[in-house]
């Protein structure tokens, strides 16, 4: 079995305006040492999916009956969604899975030094003594390329620059040696030159620590540079998934194709930008049938608006949920 297998995951929110489906029966697997990219626009449900892995969603969340998130731990396995109390969840939160967020300033406590925050979580998740935890933390800070780590250890988050803070966040997330690292838009708030540095660092750390990464981003370029496999999400569904080269070079789903066409590319300056028509529908008014049919340039009248397409293999390991992929003949007709 894979390190992590998510099946039929359905995440719903109870709100004043009714029940919102944030994630609609998705499934994916994550192998050891693999980087899976989860890409989509805002509102596609990528962050909600990631947070579900640790049950970090707000209190008005409930999960579908058949949803399961199975995590391999040593010889056994557990279903994250069956864990009830936060005591039980400690094994997962920060233990088996760590998470780094988009805005490191918001994820560090502002009035506690970086060092004490790092030591605190090590004392919760490992049996290290305080001094050993401090030693390990400083070593991790050095490892992620922070100079004068023993000085930085005693500083507060506001004293560090954006890139430095994100490095410290990564050091903190990895110090408990998690099996899975969830990176939720870790470089979006950074400048491109700093982003390149952080992505490089993450690639090195994957090699060194061998953990699996679920990498969430809206930037297909970043996915192309770090991920092994990619899953494209739209309005709570995975519309296409597969090895990153196949998905980016021969996208099978119209949404993936449209997304790629709407990106400005530096090597094709004269090509016009083709926006995806219309706006992302509100989660309260999810379209029936294929969720993308309202904006799809290739939608089949009558069919896409009523039936939900199932995922089919277009190539080995490369899946797409579109009626056009089932019967390629119709495409030319």
């Amino acid at each position, binding site marked *: 079995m894979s390190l992590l297998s998510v099946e039929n995951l359905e995440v719903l929110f109870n709100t004043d305006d009714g029940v919102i489906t944030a994630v609609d029966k998705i499934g994916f697997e994550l192998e050891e040492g693999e980087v899976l990219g989860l890409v989509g*626009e*805002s509102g596609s449900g990528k962050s909600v999916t990631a947070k579900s892995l640790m049950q970090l969603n707000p209190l008005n969340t409930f999960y579908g009956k058949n949803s399961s998130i199975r995590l391999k731990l040593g010889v056994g396995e557990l279903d994250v969604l069956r864990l009830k109390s936060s005591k039980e969840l400690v094994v997962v939160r920060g233990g088996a899975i760590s998470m780094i967020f988009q805005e490191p300033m918001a994820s560090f406590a502002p009035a506690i030094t970086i060092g004490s925050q790092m030591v605190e979580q090590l004392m919760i998740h490992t049996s290290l003594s305080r001094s050993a935890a401090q030693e390990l933390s400083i070593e991790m800070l050095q490892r992620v390329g922070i100079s004068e780590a023993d000085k930085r250890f005693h500083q507060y988050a506001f004293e560090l*620059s*954006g*890139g*430095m803070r994100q490095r410290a966040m990564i050091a903190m997330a990895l110090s408990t040696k998690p099996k899975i690292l969830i990176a939720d838009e870790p470089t979006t708030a950074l*400048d*491109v*030159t*700093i*982003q*390149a*540095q952080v*992505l*490089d660092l993450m690639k090195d750390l994957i090699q060194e620590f061998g953990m699996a990464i679920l990498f969430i981003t*809206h*930037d*297909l*370029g*970043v996915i*192309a*540079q770090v991920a092994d496999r990619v899953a494209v999400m739209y309005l709570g569904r995975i519309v296409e998934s597969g090895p*990153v*080269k196949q998905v*980016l070079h021969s996208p099978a789903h119209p949404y993936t194709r*449209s*997304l*790629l066409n*709407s*990106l*400005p*590319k*530096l*090597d094709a*300056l004269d090509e*016009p*930008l*083709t*926006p*995806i028509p219309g*706006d*992302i529908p509100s989660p309260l008014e999810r379209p029936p049938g294929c969720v993308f049919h309202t*904006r799809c340039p290739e939608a089949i009248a009558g069919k896409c608006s009523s039936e939900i397409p199932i995922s089919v293999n277009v190539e080995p390991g490369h899946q797409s949920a579109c009626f056009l992929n089932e019967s390629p003949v119709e495409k030319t007709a």
Partner: protein
Amino acid sequence: MSNQPLVEVENLNVDFPLGRSLLGKPPMLRAVNDVSLKIMPQTFFGLVGESGSGKTTLGRAMLRAAPITSGTISFNHGNTKYDVGAMSKMELKEYRKQAQLIFQDPYAALNPRMTVRDIIAEPLEVMELVQTREEADQKVREIASKCRLNLEHLRRFPHAFSGGQRQRISIARTLVCSPNFVVADESVAALDVSIQADILNLLKSLQNNLGLTFLFISHDLSVVAHICDTVAVMYLGTIVESAPTRSLFTQPKHPYTKALLSAIPTLNPEDRGKAQKLEGEIPSPVNPPSGCRFHTRCPVAEDRCRKEVPQWRESSPGHSVACHLVG
């Protein structure tokens, strides 16, 4: 198109005081350092750089929304000429009708308690460009349809709209007083990619139809590459390179531009590891490096770069660069 630039900036410096001191002058932070540029009429002029490079301050100085410490900014449109740094209050009032700003975040820029119609009409009323409500309505409808807004929506409030639609409302408000010069500061940065392309196409078509001149500020080089005619790259308050878009992106000359271009993640998974990496981070403008401001991170810096400030000169027609090592 005339050969006279619409906006011309010469040796502009913008300083901000750092705190206050009782005795003497407080220490100053130089946000824009000796910048000169020319923006030709009816073009898109792109300004790129990382955060803290001074691009927003430069844009704001051109609208006189930031203090001008020294240097000149002149605005020439037909018979109207302004020395932006030394305008009287009356002139400034007139200048505001000519030069406008589009904001970054369409969620923060629109008053949630005003209808779309009132939001778009507000500049007309403030600047006293219309006498009657009918006249205002007429102008609002004109500009709204140019910005591809549904006229039915004018009675609604901003919360009913998505990011892309809000940005179109924001653009309509900027353009309703028929300005000639528009500063678009990170106007697509907050939008999703599928919406971003739509707004970029809209800006381009508005520019063509209304004969506008844009200063387009962005940190995203691929967006700038697609929409701008001329691009200037800023680093720590100075412009290090400026050229027609094609020439800048195909033959970058300054080491910083080269590094910036190669740091953009490409869509090709085969390109992994090809990027040329810049070490370190942008230094603090409070205490900028001596000589060339980029020398602390430059992969090819020499002794001279640490001591002498490189001259800003034209290295080939239209392509200017400030680097000792570019022949």
